[in-house]
């Protein structure tokens, strides 16, 4: 482990004393940016770490299990450290508890007052004390920020992506069509192609190594997840579709420091009790 030090890298502040390392992540930065900054810092300072446990302090954020997992994977894959705990401010937890309580009360009031055939507008409004108005999800700018980091937007693209086209998605990408040879799809999050993937796909373009690429068939494309890339030599383009082994739903994800591409519904399928998308 490392000795006493403090380093600030824009969105991530790393401090250490003895066997404990504390990662503080900026409260207001989008999670993608924070993950990217964390990766860059750990990549530059890999030599500082020699195993051990760390605490990730996520400040005023409330992260879903999936987003915590993203941060954990970045730290563990880039440094060899293991994340012992996630910390956030106690008042954030209290605000969230209060918000949920209020929502439950509101729901109960609506259900209890509802008479079939009555107008919903006539229900008595739920009184909320302005001073205690919940600051959790769904209200206020701070909540908007948290909401934004909770889940990326999903954008749907209809039709084939043709040769020469490059389509960028700020969140997750769902393509209802083929990605033809010579076309490129780039997404900050996951990429799902309801068609043949024969062009280039870059998931987790903002640095998210937990991003995945799922396609109904994969015919010798170039795949990228975060900074990892994968390709296979062989018959190119459309003709490969007739003879390749990528027909059928295929999933690509980062595992053991490389992109692994495997059929989605075979050995590791949900039916077999192990969805490879759940990590």
């Amino acid at each position, binding site marked *: 482990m490392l000795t006493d030090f403090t380093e600030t890298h824009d969105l991530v502040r790393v401090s250490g004393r003895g066997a404990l390392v504390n990662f503080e992540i900026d409260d207001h930065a989008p999670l993608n940016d924070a993950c990217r900054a964390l990766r860059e810092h750990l990549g530059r300072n890999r030599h500082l770490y020699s195993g051990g446990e760390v605490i990730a302090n996520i400040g005023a954020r409330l992260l879903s299990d999936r987003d915590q997992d993203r941060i954990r994977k970045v730290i563990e894959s880039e440094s060899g450290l293991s994340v012992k705990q996630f910390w956030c401010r106690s008042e954030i937890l209290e605000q969230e508890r209060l918000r949920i309580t209020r929502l439950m009360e509101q729901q109960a009031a609506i259900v209890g007052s509802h008479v079939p055939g009555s107008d919903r507008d006539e229900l008595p409004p739920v009184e909320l004390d302005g001073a205690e108005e919940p600051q959790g999800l769904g209200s206020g700018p701070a909540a908007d920020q948290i909401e934004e980091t909770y889940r990326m937007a999903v954008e749907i693209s209809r039709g*084939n992506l*043709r*040769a020469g086209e490059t389509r960028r998605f700020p969140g997750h990408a769902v393509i209802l069509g*083929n990605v033809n*040879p*010579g076309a490129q799809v780039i997404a900050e999050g996951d990429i799902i192609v309801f068609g043949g993937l024969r062009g280039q796909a870059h998931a987790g373009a903002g640095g998210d190594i937990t991003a995945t690429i799922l396609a109904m068939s994969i015919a010798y494309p170039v795949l990228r997840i975060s900074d990892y890339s994968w390709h296979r030599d062989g018959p190119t*383009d*459309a*003709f490969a579709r*007739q003879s390749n082994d990528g027909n059928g739903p295929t999933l690509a994800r980062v595992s053991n420091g490389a992109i692994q591409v495997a059929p989605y519904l075979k050995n590791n399928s949900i039916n077999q009790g192990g969805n490879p998308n759940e990590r």
Partner: protein
Amino acid sequence: MSGKTIVMTSGKGGVGKTTATANVGTALALRSNRVAVIDTDIGLRNLDVVMGLENRIVYDLVDIVEGRCRLEQALIRDKHAGDLYLIAAAQTRDKDCITTQQLVGLCKRLEDDFDYVIVDCPAGIEQGFRNAIAAASEALVVTTPEVSAIRDADRVIGLLQAADIHQIRLIINRINPELVRRGDMMDASDVLEMLAVDAIGLVPSDDRVITSTNNGTPVVYDGQSASGREFVRIAARIDGEHLPLIDPLDEAPTSIMEKVRNIMGINRRASAHV
């Protein structure tokens, strides 16, 4: 008369655009349409050779737009089909010597006097391509069942759609039934699935096209040519007839006797389509 302008394009060179232009133009004229074909491949003209009109060129496309001749002087009447005219490309200039507006203006003038104006587009997607597609309301994209041609066709279809040309139909040229049967060539359904546009013709590979091109006589005049028959059907489809697509695999001879009958010119199935 208010005709329509159709661009024959492909992206990749050597897939048969010029041959298709000459044959579709001829077949449309044989259906009693007034047809003008324009070679826009300035500097690399070929359409005049395929139509056997290379010795009749006095004025060309650049002469028209630069005002050295009247439109009527540059229209070269075909030797065979009465209402088919060619405007040849200049051989000694380059693609930048005419503008998009000039070609659009020319096509609009021709549309007043012709049923169909077919623009033979140069290979590539540069200025020559942009000029050729500017006046068109419809596009015929020619490809062969090869990955490089298909990729270029895919790119061109995207560019045509971006240019607001949505009536795009595909001619798959040089389908070799033997190779398809052996699994060494993509079949038409693979190509169509990839390009996601309607097909207007599936043209089999045919040695007679080479002979006819060398003779300067479009292959549609050869009743024994499978590709010529398909070009005739393509013209009929452009003209509004609803003819089913015929897969070359269904039309190609499979037995030795059938091949012998073909060589002797007594193939009943083939002649039924003429």
